[in-house]
């Protein structure tokens, strides 16, 4: 009975959503249907041409230089430059929820013991993979402005590497204090950079470093720096979460 009611309700909501979005009864719904989007009507067209602050017609990979934003990856340029403030909020979300998880699952903790003792090969193999993963993660967040990826997945990969160590070695326990310090410092530098921008350029979180040629590694001004900070921060936060979840409270 309850299920039937739930299904009916959900169907009712679905009916209204679909009828409002795709079958408008009066005039045009103004809702662009899937794929039929004209970017020129959206703010994003300026993000693609990178002409929010100045005049710029075309960005050419490897040629255009000193634009308002030097990232070849448009998503990165939106995240770290045009809408950097959102990203600050976003890392705060992760920061605060990691902190909350830590608070909830606090107390003297020990690692959750697994039923099977991992063998030698697994143990040391994992360490090897750990190194590779960390390098990959660092690569990812330092090349966020050129290739897909960026700080968030990069940081998560580093955390995943740590997770691997946790799983592969029953005795392993990372030093959480170090992660806390990393996350705090990374976050602080992010905010301080933003505040510095007020002093230098008059706007909070402004990209005050010069941007090079689009498509080169040192091309996007602050973007790589911030993405590295985000990567470190996200990595240490997720590591904190993983640590909290992989440990249990010590019974008194």
């Amino acid at each position, binding site marked *: 009975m309850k299920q039937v009611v739930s299904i009916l309700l959900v169907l009712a909501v679905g009916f209204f959503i679909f009828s409002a979005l795709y079958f408008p009864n009066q005039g045009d719904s103004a809702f662009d249907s899937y794929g039929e*989007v004209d970017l020129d009507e959206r703010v994003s067209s300026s993000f693609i041409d990178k002409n929010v602050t100045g005049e710029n017609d075309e960005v050419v990979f490897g040629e255009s230089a000193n634009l308002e934003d030097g990232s070849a990856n448009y998503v990165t340029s939106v995240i770290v430059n045009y809408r950097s403030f959102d990203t600050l909020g976003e890392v705060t979300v992760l920061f605060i929820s990691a902190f909350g998880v830590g608070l909830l699952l606090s107390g003297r903790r020990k690692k959750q013991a697994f039923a099977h003792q991992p063998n030698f090969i697994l143990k040391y193999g994992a360490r090897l993979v750990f190194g590779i993963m960390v390098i990959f993660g660092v690569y990812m967040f330092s090349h966020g402005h050129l290739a897909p990826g960026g700080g968030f997945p990069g940081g998560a990969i580093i955390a995943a590497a740590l997770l691997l160590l946790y799983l592969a070695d029953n005795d392993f326990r990372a030093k959480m204090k170090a992660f806390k310090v990393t996350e705090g410092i990374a976050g602080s530098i992010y905010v301080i950079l933003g505040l510095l921008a007020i002093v230098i350029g008059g706007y909070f979180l402004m990209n005050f470093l010069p941007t090079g040629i689009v498509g080169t590694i040192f091309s996007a001004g602050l973007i790589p720096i911030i993405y590295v900070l985000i990567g470190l921060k996200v990595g240490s936060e997720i590591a904190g979460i993983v640590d909290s979840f992989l440990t249990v409270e010590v019974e008194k």
Partner: protein
Amino acid sequence: MIQYLSIALMLVGIYGLLSQRNMIKLIVSLNIFEIGLNIFIVSIGFVKDGLAPILTSNHNSSALLYVDPLPQAMVLTAIVIGVGITALALALARKLYKTHGTYELDEMEGE
């Protein structure tokens, strides 16, 4: 097409929230809802025959047709927020499990 299905996936998530009373199931439902929402948002930015929004040596000019990067940025944010909330919810669930010995909300004693 995927847009319609993403809305349907959101509705499946809401259905889960409506019908389930197990904490883990509720968190799963919430995640399903969020995934549906994320796909919906990305689909908003999709342009037919558009390129992935990255300048590369192959697609080296902004004059080409790209998909909208802004919804993608939004979704990136939404995913990370979702993880934060899921982690918090699971921590709560674990804590509650410890005191009540169950994940079923209806079986928990007290108010």
